[in-house]
Structures are given as structure tokens and as C-alpha cells.
């Protein structure tokens, strides 16, 4: 018991100590006519709906010999705008099958309240408004369509859902925050002393109540703990650009079964800490044990060993072998269905492929091990708490020259040591029999673009010359993916579409397959519109690749960190030969400025030498993540870049 309290005391949420009195319980049907009459929610006048009460109560009970996790949901929602009418339709998935996963949904009741000139009317949810829909062999949806929902309605409903307890089924994650304001989110859970759940809280909102007390649970003939959490006035969650995934920022509470201590029934530890998690994975039939059954890789491993002596070559060849022989099906996972089976099927998910890579590297003689991680859209992992389901991806790890080398064989365009964008999510866990640890997922590559142009301007202000763009690091990765998928013709077509004032007469692409080199695009090109000709004057816009013309950060404020995932480096160099008889009479000022703490740098330099103008513009972001405090600087930084990139050079006929 004490353990749970310890866990909670370090939770990420703060309890407001000023909250003296516990809010009174909310009873079904106790609807105040003021709420029905309400036209605008005073705390957020722009809300389309307000969740007045989001209540959940979870407890354990025994039913037909099974332990059930029972959840009672009680919702009260005020509809303020027509766009929220769909909230009157509720979908509840229910597993129906004869086996041990059978769920039960019962006690559905609901009412809709509407204002009728000051006195509320009340419509009951009846059976004919509840539909059962089969979604697959075992999953059904119960769909509820509440009656008479209109602007101003208050909807109240509740139901009971029972799910058999298992290691894979924990009490459902409780979200205190939603896309609309939540006036009161109230969650209660009663856990018999036999079960020890890890509870992990997350988010930016304070708890108005954080209470736990001992209770007697007669059904299990044991004591237990009852927790009660309340969050008041949770504002609507609003999405921002450059974040990983919503769930990293929402306030919520997660559960994971850590151990069962039920004498004479079951006494077992599940994953308690990272060492346990490590052990569980190593012993798992779908993870560690699979790495031992790599006989089918023996032939290829000895072939690689005979053919290549150099370590880099051996690793690269092993990766190429997996890439060519097992196709990624696009799915993330940490467990494999069996490496040999996957090898025969020739297609698999991230776990299948990268565990097979680990097995092959081992067979060659490396101390290769898996690293588990969580992709960006799956949310961050907790370094304090070992939760298996926070992980959804596997990559291979070896130590080379004292450094961590992470390898992903799901994608042929990744260099050894480079992880795909989705995997750049701060840290992962190295599953290792003797030295398990966290490893950093910070990218070793940047997103690099380098552009170079040599142009000649004629009397009419038209421009002609050569333009080269080189892609390296992550930029090369995505360019190659597109190039491979679309082919040269389509790739070029997209460039032509994007550059409406370029006329490309020749295009050449180099190293589109050679991942050790930057990919290069070379164009013979004519350009119009970059020079405005007016009498004996010419005005030249020198940023012919059109650089940055818009600030991506438009909002005045920012709540969450800005996560670019990788450092960025862009260089533009160009020279312009001006027509005979013209002279440069004015050029923009050369500048160089930086973000605080060396977070980024921008230099923009224009020089004139005889009949040639040269421009060098360089932009770099050194960090992968910027804090909300740094946002105003980033915004200003971009403003200055946009300004410089729009400046012009003035020519005059002499």
C-alpha cells in the first residue's frame, strides 16, 4: 500500500492546497435550470460546448468467477453551438465473444434538457435510440443518439461497462482535459490490496482534489485504497504547430498493473521498474527468446563474414540484406510474431525487421541489442516509470568506437546510425542482458540543404544559368524517398509546379540511390520575374529559390515547446552577371544575427565585384527543441529572415 502512495507523491500534477472543502458529489438528474438557460459559457465565451461534469468511477468485482474492472461513466454536457450537436451521438466499443475477453455494457440511461421559456423540458433516452453495430468479429459498437439535441441542450447520460481484468487490460486512461472546456472532471478508483497499479499523471493542470483513503472491499475480503481526483475548470486543449502529439500535453492519469499479491491465488511481479521491464522483454517469447532462434540466418551471416572484413561494410551489408528481404508493412510494434515466420513471409513490422537485424548482427559476431522507443505520434516515454505500453518501436543497437550506433532497417534510404523522423523522440531503452540503460535518440544527422546558382541577366531583365541543389541528412532522406516513389519525371514535375517562374530546360539528378553521398539536383534554367525592369533601372530579387517568404510562427503566444526534431542547416549561394552598361547603385545591408545561447544563426551577405553580384545566405538551427520562452525570439528571428530574403538590388544603366 505504501508503495502506491510513494508513487503518487512524485506525480507530475500539483495539488492545490488552498482547496479547503471537497466539492459535493454530483448526482444524476440534479440539473440546475440556470445551466439549461445558459447561452454562453462565461469562462470561455468561444466554446462550442462545455463538459459540465465528466465523472468516472472504477472498481473491481467478481462476476461468474472472473475479476471484472467495472467503470461507471457519468457525463453532463452543455451544447452551446450547432457545431457541437454531434456530441449527442455517443459511440461505445464493446468486445463480445464467448471467451475471456467478453465485456458487458449495461445501465445505459440518459436525458436531454432544453429550455422552454424558463422552465426546462426533459426528454428520455429510450431503447429505440440505442443501436448495436457490428464492427468486426468481436468488436461491437453501441451507438446512442440522444433525443432532441439543439443549441442550448444539456445532455446527461451514464452507463456501466465491465471488462475482465488482465495484464493487458488496465483501467482506462482518464483524461482531465478535452477539446472543449471541462468544468469538473471527477475520477474515483478503488483498488483491492491484492493489486498494485502504477499510476502516472501527466499534463499542465493542477488537481483540485487528490485524496486517498483505506476502504474495506468485502467482495474480495480485503482492504483497499480509494483514490479520488478532481480537476476544476480545465480549459479547452488547443493544438499548436511543431509538437509531438496531443497526448504528451494533455492532463491525464495512466494505469499499469505492476504486481499481484493475492495469497493462494496469484503472487507475481509484472514490470516494476526498468530492470524488470528489461527482464520481461528478454524472457519474452515474442522478443528476447526470438533472438536465440536465428539458425535461418547462419548462411547469410557467414557469407557476409567471408566476403567483407571491414566492420562498416559488414554492418551495411547486413542492413541491406534485411531491407531487401523483408518489407516493412508500415506498422510499429515492439513484439515479433516470430522471426523465422516473418523471414518466410518477407514482410513485417518494425519489431519483426529490427529484431531480425539484431539477430543477424549477432550471428556475424557483434554485440547487437534491441532498443525500444516510442515514436513521436505515440508520445513520450517516462524515464522514471517503466511502462511497457509506452513503447511501440524497436531499432537495433551496437556500440562502435565507444559510441551508440542505432540502426533501423525498415527504410532503405536511412544511413546506418540514422533514425527516421518519427523515432526522434528524445530517449529509448537499450534492452541488454547485463548493461541495460537509456540511450539518446538525438539525431546524429541534420537537415541540410545547399543551393548554388550561377546566373546571367540580359538587357530585358531575363535570367539564364545553372542552379544546383544538394540534399544531405534528413533532407536527403525525404528527397530520396519521394524520388524513388515518384520517379524522376514526377519529381521534376513537382519542382516545375512549385517554381512557376522557372523554365527548366535540362535536369539531372545524382546519387539518388547512393545514400553515403548527398543527393544532387542540377538544372539549366531560365527565370523571369526576379528582375523588374523600369526605364533605365532594374531591380533584382536575388533569392531566386524564394527562400523564406512567410513566417511559420504566426501566433503571438506559445504554450508548448517547439519541437523541430532535428537541427536544420540551409545555405544559398548565387552569382549574377549583370548586363553590359549597367552598374549596381544600391545593395541591401549585410547582416548576421543569432538566437540566444547559440540556438541558431543567420547570415546574409551581398557583394559586388565588377559586373558580378554574389549572394550568400545561411540559416541554421542548432537545437532540436525550443522552449516556449524562446518562442518570441524564434518568431522575431524568422521575421528578420523574411525581411532580408525579400530585399532587392538596384541596377542603373550608366
Amino acid at each position, binding site marked *: 500500500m505504501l508503495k502506491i502512495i510513494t508513487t503518487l507523491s512524485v506525480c507530475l500534477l500539483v495539488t492545490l492546497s488552498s482547496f479547503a472543502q471537497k466539492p459535493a458529489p454530483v448526482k444524476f438528474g440534479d440539473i440546475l435550470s440556470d445551466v439549461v438557460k445558459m447561452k454562453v459559457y462565461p469562462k470561455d465565451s*468561444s466554446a462550442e460546448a462545455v463538459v459540465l461534469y465528466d465523472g468516472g468511477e472504477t472498481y473491481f468485482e467478481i462476476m461468474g468467477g472472473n475479476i471484472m474492472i467495472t467503470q461507471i461513466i457519468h457525463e453532463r454536457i452543455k451544447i452551446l453551438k450547432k457545431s457541437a450537436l454531434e456530441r449527442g451521438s455517443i459511440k461505445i466499443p464493446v468486445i463480445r465473444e464467448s471467451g475471456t475477453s467478453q465485456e458487458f455494457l449495461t445501465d445505459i440511461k440518459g436525458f436531454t434538457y432544453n429550455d422552454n421559456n424558463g422552465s426546462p423540458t426533459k426528454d428520455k433516452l429510450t431503447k429505440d435510440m440505442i443501436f448495436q453495430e457490428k464492427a*468486426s468479429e468481436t468488436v461491437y459498437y453501441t451507438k446512442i443518439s440522444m*433525443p432532441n439535441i439543439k443549441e442550448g441542450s444539456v445532455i446527461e447520460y451514464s452507463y456501466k461497462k465491465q471488462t475482465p481484468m488482465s495484464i493487458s487490460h488496465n483501467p482506462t486512461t482518464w483524461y482531465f482535459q478535452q477539446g472543449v472546456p471541462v468544468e469538473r472532471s471527477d475520477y474515483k478508483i478503488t483498488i483491492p490490496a491484492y493489486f498494485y497499479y502504477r499510476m502516472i499523471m501527466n499534463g499542465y493542470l493542477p488537481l483540485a482534489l487528490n485524496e486517498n483513503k483505506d476502504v474495506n472491499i468485502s467482495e474480495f475480503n480485503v482492504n483497499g485504497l480509494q483514490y479520488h481526483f478532481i480537476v476544476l475548470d480545465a480549459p479547452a486543449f488547443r493544438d499548436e504547430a511543431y509538437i509531438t502529439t496531443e497526448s504528451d500535453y494533455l492532463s491525464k492519469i495512466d494505469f499499469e498493473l505492476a504486481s499481484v499479491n493475492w495469497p493462494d491465488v496469484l503472487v507475481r511481479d509484472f514490470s516494476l521498474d526498468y530492470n524488470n521491464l528489461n527482464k520481461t522483454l528478454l524472457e519474452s517469447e515474442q522478443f528476447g527468446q526470438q533472438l536465440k532462434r536465428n539458425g535461418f540466418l547462419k548462411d547469410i551471416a557467414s557469407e557476409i563474414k567471408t566476403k567483407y572484413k571491414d566492420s562498416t561494410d559488414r554492418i551495411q551489408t547486413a542492413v541491406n540484406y534485411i531491407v531487401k528481404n523483408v518489407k516493412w508493412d508500415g506498422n510499429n510494434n515492439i513484439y515479433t510474431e516470430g522471426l523465422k515466420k516473418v523471414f518466410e513471409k518477407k514482410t513485417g513490422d518494425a519489431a519483426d525487421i529490427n529484431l531480425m537485424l539484431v539477430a543477424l548482427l549477432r550471428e556475424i559476431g557483434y554485440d547487437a541489442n534491441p532498443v525500444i522507443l516510442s515514436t513521436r505520434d505515440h508520445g513520450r516515454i517516462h524515464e522514471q516509470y517503466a511502462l511497457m505500453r509506452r513503447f511501440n518501436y524497436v531499432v537495433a543497437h551496437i556500440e562502435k568506437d565507444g559510441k551508440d550506433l542505432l540502426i533501423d532497417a525498415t527504410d532503405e534510404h536511412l544511413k546506418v546510425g540514422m533514425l527516421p523522423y518519427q523515432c526522434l523522440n528524445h530517449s529509448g531503452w537499450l534492452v541488454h542482458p547485463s548493461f541495460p540503460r537509456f540511450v539518446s535518440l538525438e539525431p546524429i544527422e541534420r537537415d541540410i540543404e545547399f543551393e548554388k546558382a550561377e546566373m546571367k541577366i540580359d538587357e530585358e531583365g531575363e535570367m539564364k544559368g545553372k542552379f544546383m541543389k544538394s540534399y544531405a541528412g534528413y533532407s536527403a532522406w525525404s528527397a530520396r524517398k519521394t524520388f524513388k516513389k515518384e520517379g524522376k519525371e514526377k519529381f521534376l514535375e513537382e519542382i516545375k509546379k512549385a517554381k512557376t*517562374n522557372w523554365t527548366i530546360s535540362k535536369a539531372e539528378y545524382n546519387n539518388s540511390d547512393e545514400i553515403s553521398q548527398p543527393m544532387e539536383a542540377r538544372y539549366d534554367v531560365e527565370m523571369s*520575374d526576379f528582375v523588374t525592369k523600369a526605364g533605365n533601372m532594374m531591380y533584382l530579387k536575388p533569392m531566386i529559390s524564394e527562400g523564406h517568404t512567410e513566417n511559420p510562427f504566426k501566433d503571438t503566444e506559445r504554450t508548448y515547446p517547439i519541437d523541430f526534431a532535428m537541427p536544420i542547416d540551409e545555405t544559398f549561394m548565387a552569382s549574377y552577371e549583370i548586363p553590359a552598361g549597367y552598374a549596381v547603385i544600391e545593395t541591401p545591408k549585410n547582416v548576421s544575427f543569432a538566437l540566444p545561447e547559440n540556438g541558431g544563426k543567420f547570415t546574409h551577405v551581398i557583394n559586388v565585384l565588377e559586373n558580378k553580384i554574389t549572394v550568400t545566405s545561411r540559416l541554421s538551427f542548432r537545437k532540436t527543441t525550443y522552449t516556449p520562452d524562446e518562442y518570441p525570439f524564434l518568431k522575431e528571428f524568422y521575421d528578420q529572415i523574411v525581411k532580408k530574403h525579400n530585399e532587392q538590388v538596384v541596377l542603373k544603366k550608366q
Partner: protein
Amino acid sequence: MKKALLFLVTLSFSSVFAQKYPVSTIPAELKEKAHAVVREHKTSFIVKDIGSAVTKVEGAITILDEKGEQHTTLVIPYNKFTKVNDMEAQLYDETGKKIKSLKRDDIESIGGSSGANNIDDSFVKYASLTHTKYPYTIVFSYEFTTKNMMFYPSWEAIPYNAEATSVEQASFMVSMPNGVQLRYKEQNMLNKVVMGRDGDKFLYSWEVSNLKAIEREPYSPSLSEILPTVYTAPTLFKVDDYEGNIQSWADLAKFYGNLNKDREKLPAELITKIKDLVKNETDETKKIKKVYEYLQANTRYVSIQLGIGGWQSMKSEDVANKGYGDCKALTTFTMGMLRELGIKSYQALVKAGDDANDILTDFPSFQFNHVFLCVPQTKDTLWLECTSQTNAFGYLSDFTSNRHVVLIQENGGKLVKTPTYRPNDNMMVRKGKFVLTEDGNAEAEIETRLSGLQQDSHAGVIHTLGTDEQKKWLTNNMSLSSVEIKQFSLTEKREKIPSVSEKMTLALRNISNKSGTRIFLTPNLLNQARTVPLPNPDRKVDFELSGNYMDVDSISFQIPAGFSSEYLPEPTKIQSKFGTYTTNVQMTGDKILYVRQITLLQGRYPAAAFNEFVDFRKKIVKADKNQIVLVKKT
């Protein structure tokens, strides 16, 4: 209402399919620009009697690369009227060696809907076979029985009208029992129907061969219109306990009317309420408007696709009690309310959607996915969209305007066309005043009135977003480097041609650019055309422009003290059959006035005119970038 599940069908050719389809035998011209090649494809639709039919599909398709993999998935929708009898597939490698077969476990059954607001009783059977090494060939067959005979299949010579897919050979066969007539329509078919008999059955067959892969050209009409297709439809048919015989639109309307007979009866209480609601109105249009407003305030749309393929309406009494229904139910309900006031109205079957092509007007069949209400009036006809709580009264938007619909009338019905919105209806008129400072910043007052189809997204924003989000949307909607909205308002006028008035006070940075002693300013800050399609001298198909709108921008700039103009762009006038474009820049004292007017017309043009259109766009994009140069007075 559900789009008809139109299905492809076939005969058994097992002996043929025992062959291996080596990739080497594919003619070179069929591999050009192709991601997949249909080696052989046979669809047969065997009508057993007026109430049931069996569909058989067999084929082999070679997947050349990753992009051809859409063809590796077999999807068979089914519901209580459909029974899937069989589904098989094998995969062969490049040489024709068998690699694997589809197993029972690989076939999944998934519910047809997912959203809470969708209630549906349909499913799909779904299976996929893929291989890591291209090319490879999938050989497949499936069969299902249907008892909903309202719909006969449309046979697409290229499966799913897919791009980058060529066809070696494909065929379609329909078998009709004695005494039941088939109706069909051939579209872009080189070979016409071949008729034959098999005992007392009548057989109709079509064949295509060596169809090259096509690539959809930009602005092209929908592929379903330009590719070879055979449409079929029933004459005598049966679904559930309903029998029909369709030869004309009137017959179709009659059947639909019969299917939905006597469903508009309302509870007495509601009738009293409605009568009370309009008791002070003498004008019929105003009465209808009151009813429509009542509908919008008291009901909501829930998609309910149950029963007869989703073609039979809920009863209006239930709509009255529950406050929701699907398009059929809400339209029937509205019709019922109007009837109580002695106002006649008709349900209109329509193929709705902003990108839906018009129905085949010469081929009466169930081509619809929606129903709404037509209220004929002495002067004009009113059209009511009954599923929207926010739609302006009588406005059709691009969801139902400019297309043919079928009216369901007392003893049948007829085909009519809904109105088309003209450039004068779809306007954007903007007036702006900018006060520029020397360092490139500005303050501005902007007033914009949008109407008709041009106001749709703004109206959507008013109805769905809160104030903060509206501001965010407006900010992101302006492609300006740095802008802050100091104040704004959005006001709606919900008329037959609805309009939105948008007012903004802005603080802007870097809208002009100072380099040394000069200031560069592009006066068209707010409405720049940016995209130009690529020219294509070899274009094959006609192109369509949705057009029909007009923009007028009048923007004035007060320039910073101490500056004079060094360069003002010349006036432009670009005229073509696609529309007209003019700009004019004038300076008076310290003020520059920029006026831009553009009218684009809707139309369909021959392929040969495409480069003329590209040229027209190019000139506009270039003119929109014209800049003013100011220089410091010395």
C-alpha cells in the same frame, strides 16, 4: 442515402486461370506509365429472377511496383441483402511460379461505419496479398449473391477507373432470365454489345483489350466520365417486398415514392405548433422560412443507413419525437410540416457533392446519394437542404447546385436542373487602407464582402469556430509574412445568396521592403494568384474550370513622408475566353490606389486550348507580383 454498391461480376474461367501469367508476355506498350497491368478480368452478373442475382469476378493482375499495390486488396461490401459465397486469391512471382494463397484467416470482416453519428448495417470483407519482390501477379476470384435488385452493376473496363493501370483483356457479361429486359448504356466503348442466348437466358457481353495506362491530366473531367464503362439497370425488379419496373425517370420516382409512402404524418401537437408559428404570416415564402428555421433549430442530422439499402425513410413522427434523422427522414419531415400549411413540396433525389459529376440524364437508374426538398413557388423555386442546421434559407451551395435532380411527385416525377451560381453571385469585394512606415511596417483597415460560393468557408468558420480560433484562421488565411489582427468581426447575411462581411484592423510587419534608399512594395498583398499548371502540348482530354466568380480589390497605401515614386506598374488588361483580369495603379499626393478585378468563368474546353489557359494563368501570376518602387526624395 447510400451510394449504390455497384459491383463487377464474372464467369468461371478456372481452366484459363490455371496458367501462370509470366510477366514476360506483357506487351511493352502496356507497361508504359503503368504501376499495374490487368492481365485478364471477367465480370459476370447473372440475374436469377427479378429478386436476385449472382455476381462473379475472376481476374489476374500484375503489380509492377509499390504504387500498383492498391490492386492487391480485395474489398467486397455486403449487408443483409448480400451474401459473399467465395473469395480466393493466389500470388505468383515474375516467372509465374506460385508463391502463396490467400488463407481463410487473411480475410477480415469489418463494419461499414465508424463514427458515432453514423448508424449502418453494412460490412466489408477485406483481404490483401502482397509480395516484396516486384513484379508479381495476383490471381483472384470471388462471388456474391444479392437480393437488392434496385441496383445493377456499372462495369468499368479499367478496374476502379484506376490511373496507371493498363488492361490486356477484360470482359463483362450479363445473363437475363426470359421475360426480364436489361437496360444498358455504353460509354467510350470501342466494341459494342454482343448478344446471344443460352437456352432461355439472354446473354449480353462486352469486351475490351489492350487499353493503355492513363494518367489523369490536371483539370480533367472525372475519370468515370472519360473511361470505357458499361452501365446497366433493371426494368422489372424486387427488393424486400417492393416491386418496381423502371423505364423512365417517372417510373423511378414512382418506385421511390411508393417505398416512402405515408411517412410524413406528424404528431397533432407539432401540427398545432407549426400552425401557431406562422399564424401572423401572409406571405408564403415567409411561412416556409419559419418552418425551415424551426427545422434547423430543433433537429440534427444523424446518418441512419438501415433497412432497404438505406433508401427508406424513418417516419416523421419519430423525427418529431427524437429530434434527429437522416436526409430522407428530415426531408420527409419538412415536407410533412409544409403540407400541414397547405404548401406543396417535392423530395428531390440528387447526386450531391462539390466534386460529383452530373448524373447520366438519359439512363434512369438510382445514381443518387442524397435527397433534399424542392418547393415550387409562383415566381421562383425554393430548394431546402434539410440536413444542415446552419445553411442559409434557400441556398444550395456547391453541394446540390448546377445539376440534374429527380423530383418525386404525386404520380411519378421528372428530371429538373437546379440553379447555377454566376460570377455576380460568387463575389469577393475588398476595400483596404494601408498606412506604411519607412521600415516596412503598416497599419491597415480591411473590409471584405464575400457572397455565394465564395462565402462558404467563412460561413463554416463562423459556425464551427470560437472567437480565438476564428482569429487564428483569419491570420493563417492571409499569406503575409507577419501580421497581427488587432480587431475583427465576421457578420453573416443568411439570404438566398448568402454573404459574409469580414472587417479587420491589422498591424503588419515587413509588408514592404527597404533596401537602402528605396522601398519595394507589391500592392497585391492579399489576393495573389500563385499556381500555374504545367503546359502540355500533348494533352489528351478536355479540361474543366469551376470558375464563376469575381473578385474586386481596391487597396490604398499612404506612403511614408519623404518618399516619391520611382516606378509604378503599368495598367494590365488580360482578356480570354476563360475570364478577364485588370489592374491599375495610380498615385495622388502621398496615396497610391491599387485596383484589381478578376472574373473567371465556368466552362469545359477542348484539350487544344489548354496551353492558352496556362498562358492566361501565367500572365495573371506575373501581374500579381508587380511591384511599386519608392525612393527617398533628395
